[in-house]
């Protein structure tokens, strides 16, 4: 198939499946002009929803980054029984229906749940954080594992024979080597956290002005016939995700030409 043929097919598919819907969001948002969008975005509920989304993301992303790296190291470098299963379990959050995720958290931390903590977990922010961490868990791991596999252990072993401690090896050899895998994993994790809806909605309790994330706010707006509100909040979410990607692109050094 010719180069232009392939390009046409790829871009045509993307246009139908991806670009058209996303452009529609822009269109529906600004259909009645800028003012209604401004009013909607500056309302107390919207701002609080945005703030809550950002707080949850700011907790979930670092958590999944740190433990994602640790998990990746364990999966690639260590031998233990059931490694294949752990590997699959890491991918599982991608597969789970959000309905099930929400249900599981309610069963675990709800009124008659297995785990009772001194503070309220479900129907409060902690439960929402847990749900978000759950669904965005795989990304850093999955981006780091192939890199670790590719680079192998030679450099680290060299470091060890030269007398470096494992902390030094990690800091000076491993981490720099995987940093772009980590960075990209962070981008994907952030995007996923921003867009989380199904599981979070079940554990949020929908307390107005307190436990509504921006995605929940989108649904509430839609339900209250506030189309502009729903779409402008969606637009903010989409732009935040693109911003994360752009930032990563900006801080990445230029690749040497081949």
């Amino acid at each position, binding site marked *: 198939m010719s180069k232009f043929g392939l390009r046409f097919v790829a871009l045509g598919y993307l246009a139908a499946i991806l670009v058209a819907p996303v452009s529609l969001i822009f269109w529906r948002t600004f259909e009645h002009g800028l003012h209604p969008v401004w009013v909607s975005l500056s309302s107390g509920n919207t701002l609080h929803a945005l703030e809550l989304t950002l*707080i949850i993301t700011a*907790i979930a992303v*670092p*958590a999944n980054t*740190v433990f994602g*790296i*640790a998990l990746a190291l364990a999966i690639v470098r260590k031998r233990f029984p059931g490694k294949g299963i752990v590997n699959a379990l890491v991918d599982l959050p991608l597969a789970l229906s959000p309905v099930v995720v929400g249900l599981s958290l*309610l069963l675990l931390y*709800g*009124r*008659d749940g297995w785990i009772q*903590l*001194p*503070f*309220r*977990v*479900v*129907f*409060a*922010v*902690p439960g929402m*954080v847990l749900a978000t961490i759950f669904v965005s868990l795989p990304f850093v791991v999955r981006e780091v594992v192939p*890199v670790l596999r*590719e*680079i192998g252990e030679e450099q680290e072993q060299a470091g060890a024979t030269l007398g470096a401690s494992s*902390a*030094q090896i*990690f*800091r*000076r*050899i491993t*981490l*720099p*080597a*995987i*940093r*772009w*895998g980590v*960075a*990209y994993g962070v*981008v994907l994790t952030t995007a996923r956290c921003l867009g989380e809806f199904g599981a979070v909605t079940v554990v949020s*309790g*929908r*307390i*107005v002005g*307190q436990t509504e994330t921006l995605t929940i706010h989108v649904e509430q707006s*839609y*339900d*209250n*016939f506030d189309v502009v509100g729903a779409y402008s909040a969606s637009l903010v979410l989409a732009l935040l995700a693109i911003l994360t*990607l752009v930032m*990563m*692109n900006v801080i*990445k050094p230029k*690749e040497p030409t081949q």
Partner: protein
Amino acid sequence: MYYFPSIPVNNVNNPVRSLMPRIKIFGALAVLALALVGGASGASKDVKLNLVAYSTPAAAFAKIIPAFQATAAGKGVSFSQSYGASGDQARAVLSGLPADVIDLSLQPDMTTLVQAGVVGRDWNANKYKGFVTTSVVVFVVRDGNPKKIKTWDDLTKKGVDIITPNPFTSGGARWNVMAAYGTYLKETKSPTKAVAKLTQLFQNVSVQDKSARNALNTFLGGKGDVLLTYENEAILAQQNKQNVQYVIPKSTILIENPLAVTTKAPAEAKAFYNYLYTPAAQRLFAQTGYRPILKSVAKEFKFPARPDLFTIRTLGGWKKVQPQFFDPDKGIMATVERKVGGVTG
């Protein structure tokens, strides 16, 4: 060019903090963060009431709460509000959602709370049987009603495209089913024939949205000839500048929304509960489309009376109807859905 790591050659001089202390610090911070956001609550001395309701009365409460707070009984009372599907809200309360005043869409949802001891058994002992607002099932139709849909029999005709929420995901949809069944039962005087007509109705259903509001939006999006919903939903949509025209069939069911105060609620909750039965509050409900339960206020608004209006008690009450119709495996609706889906046996 895209974003994937190229394998670096020599990147040894990268001062990055080591991992282990990071994990420890981070772990501590995480627990702290969780506890902080979890434990944070308003430090005000005023009373805070937790209002948990289904989605539709949100517009009414937006006005009623400030009105209550302006009265002597409501001074210094602040509210935390949660709105969602009736069944979802009941389940949330069962799972620990704090609630002092609960306003739901249908009685069975309240009954689950009574069974769990969250709401006292005497919740409906007042003269209004525990209901605070009422409405009726109506047909929303296209401009000018081109298919001339006026009665429940019209819904069984061939070629009529009906939108209703799924009775298993939407508690509100059950009112639609019972309104249909009640009418057919009255006409045919035979439960078997009534169920047969109900099945015919569902043959014409093309979309079963998960909630009443979703169903309304589906209809407004251009799908279907008629939508089964409640009068107050239709009126609220009109007030929100949606192009909604509805017909109230002669025979329809009275929708009754239960209200209760939880057993552990503070005294101010009872004050708010009583306020909702005052003419002032009932008027505010009526202004958002509800038929007020207070007859004196109902007279002020011109809700059309229906000659063949019946209640769920005619059909045996929710206690009988809920398992009979809506048991997910053995209920009549399960059989209807099966038949309509083309499954035999």
